[in-house]
């Protein structure tokens, strides 16, 4: 796996640095060029649906991250 491929896969994950009230990009996303960012986006679209299908409550990791944030 090349470093670029690793960055794309990492940026497609749901974890983001904590920053209440602000948008903080994933460091891996920040290191990618526009084409790599698009790839990460396309992978994310599919990955979230797969994750949701595998989650007992049908929630993606994005949904889980948001629910954790609003729960404080």
């Amino acid at each position, binding site marked *: 796996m090349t470093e670029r491929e690793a960055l794309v896969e990492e940026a497609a*994950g749901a974890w983001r640095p904590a920053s209440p009230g602000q948008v903080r990009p994933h460091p891996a996303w920040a290191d990618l060029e526009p084409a790599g960012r698009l790839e990460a986006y396309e992978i994310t679209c599919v990955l979230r649906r797969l994750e949701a299908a*595998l989650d007992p409550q049908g929630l993606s*990791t994005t949904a889980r991250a948001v629910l954790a944030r609003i729960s404080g």
Partner: protein
Amino acid sequence: MPESAELAGEDLLLDGIRAGDQMSFARWLSLSEGRLRGSLRPFAARVDVEAVLQESLVRVWQVTPRFVPDGRPDALLRLAIRIARNLAVSELRRNRIDLVDPEFLERALADAERLTSGPDSGSDPILRQAIEECRRTLPRKPADAIQARIESGGAEPDAVLADRLGMRRNTFLQNITRARRLLAACLRRRGIDVASELA
């Protein structure tokens, strides 16, 4: 998730969310996330859509108690799209990307107004069953890697998950890639094109 939420229509979900019911919000998320993410596609090369999406959804939760629906379908989703789009534009401006291409913004905003109909296809029970059956065929390490991400729910970076599994970061990410590709291939053998079915 409560049975009532599973059967709920948008109005019932909205009532629950406005009353501060996180289960209703969770159910709404499961039905709306894909369409909301899709509305941000024009921004994907320029802003971190995942970060924008998460912050937008937190803001949707915060403003919904004061939200008055307009009576048209998908009222809350349309509000969420407006919030997300405005946040994406703010990010473009913060990064001074708006100076590059004024036409881009106009095009992106017009695209974001388009709303695909119907709930996310990931909520289709037959599709969910096929994905679950394919998951059972995964080799152990790819299965462990994707399971670690699901269990973490976006709370921890991949380096932490990799460490917990005794993998190096690159190995962990390789296993995520492998899991994703194997699931897609398994679904294709069942006549399901992941890109179109899950888009």
